[in-house]
């Protein structure tokens, strides 16, 4: 019953009812990221206001429950926050995912994303969880570029 710790109720909820899914206008940058080993794909757009506020993160793609739920959670956390704030969440999320299950997550920073802590114990699935988050970081850099 090891997987139970990975498929948290919150992850399954986001998978079944994705938040903010669909590509929207206007946007400053669009990126397309793929996960070659499993064929997961994600197109992601960001719209940032002049003051650095993230106005929208919109996305579309296909993939496993982990990758799709991670995109949904990212949308919730990033939209409405600032670029700097959201990047610190990305950083903490990346640290958690790459910690092989040995990292104590900072719940204050991560919010709902803490539900993915169990995924870190499955090296093959870490890149699923990170797909949307890496795409977001990439899109932000391009939008600032």
């Amino acid at each position, binding site marked *: *019953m*090891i*997987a*139970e710790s990975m498929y948290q109720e919150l992850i399954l909820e986001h998978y079944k009812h994705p938040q903010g899914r669909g590509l929207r206008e206007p946007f400053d940058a669009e990126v397309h990221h793929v996960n070659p080993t*499993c*064929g997961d*794909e994600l197109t992601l757009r960001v719209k940032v206001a002049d003051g650095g506020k993230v106005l929208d993160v919109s996305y579309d793609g296909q993939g496993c429950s982990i990758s799709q739920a991670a995109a949904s959670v990212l949308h919730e956390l990033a939209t409405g926050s600032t670029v700097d704030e959201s990047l610190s969440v990305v950083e903490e999320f990346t640290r958690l995912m790459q910690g092989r299950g040995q990292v104590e997550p900072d719940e204050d920073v991560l919010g709902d994303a803490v539900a993915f802590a169990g995924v870190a114990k*499955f090296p093959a*699935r870490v890149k*699923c969880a990170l797909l949307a988050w890496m795409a977001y970081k990439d899109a932000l850099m391009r939008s600032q570029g």
Partner: protein
Amino acid sequence: MSAVPGFDVERIRKDFPVLTRELPGGRPLVYLDSGNSSQKPAQVVETMRDHLTWHYGNVGRALHVLGSESTEAYEDARGKIAAFVGAPSRDEIVFTKNASEALNLVAYAFGNPIGEDERFRMGPGDEIVISEMEHHSNIVPWQMLAQRTGATLRWFPVTDEGRLDVEGLEELVNERTKIVSITHQSNVLGTVNSVSPILARAREVGALMMLDASQSVPHQAVDVAELGVDFVAFTGHKMVGPSGIGVLWGRRELLDAMPPFLGGGEMIEAVWMDHSTYAPVPHKFEAGTPPIVEAIGLGAAVDYLTAVGMDQIKAHEKELVAYALEALPELPGLRIIGPRTPIARGGTISFTLEGIHPHDVGQILDDVYGIAVRVGHHCARPLHLRFGIPATTRASFYLYNTTAEIDALVRGLHHVQKVFG
């Protein structure tokens, strides 16, 4: 119990200690991933251990006792494999590291300035024919060949049922075709391809024909002479042998006409500073120290399979696949990608579950039930694109699998649907 007379699956399972393993959490192992790589019987492991412990030396060049013993065992293995696939001569068995290397070896013989034989000349205007159901090993080497030579790569399409579409055979294989290379049995669909009509057309137009038999040689008696093709590639690790050893069978006369592949020790006759002459086949294609113990292990694997009987193994797998084709569709939303009848197909079943990604299917099956399946595109991405899906879940059976394990798979899939439903 198996319904095949004289085939005792429980006795066979005892030869594979790993099948009695309990995984963490007390789950029994249900291994349904033999199309990926098979498990190894104690007889193979013991043969390799014994050789490494008591007889090991380098082959073909050491004159001492150990060198002779290793050389004899290595060459014995070649003889066993030749007999196993009905090769007219043991010199037609070339050891490679896997089926991919065997396919590349043949691809590199074409359009190679070292070679002089007309049949292997290749340039713009020439054509290479493969199929849409190939795995990457039988696609990429030919793409690279086309890039090197300016030749054109073409392919057979696949029907909705997962069979090779040979409707356009006459046009596809034509006077410009130099080589046709297709799979004998699909690693995704399970489809066993009918070779003779394609071979007949290849002969008509003077093209050579190669079979990727990685998924057929482990599961049915394959006789290369009877098939009548020019080259056959297969690999050891899918046929209860070790990894690191593969085989290219080729017609002697063609192997003689081909340029060498990798250069190095053992493949030469004489070397000067500015040129070399080459050893006769098969050694011409075996540069450097080969995978000695792996070849000997493959010889033991062939002994094991022969003792069980390839026809018995085929019959047992046919029972399993017929059972699974009955049982799986009871799951709502399950779509089998490939033939839905147990005719001209092997024991490999790929499927999708509506709304659930194969990675999630595989993870739950493994973590909750200890069921090992493969998920993803199985190194056959173009075939998945053909069916408009990114990935599938694949269960593949072998001589040691049981109908009880298929029942476990069905139970596991019901649970998967509960979690994600």
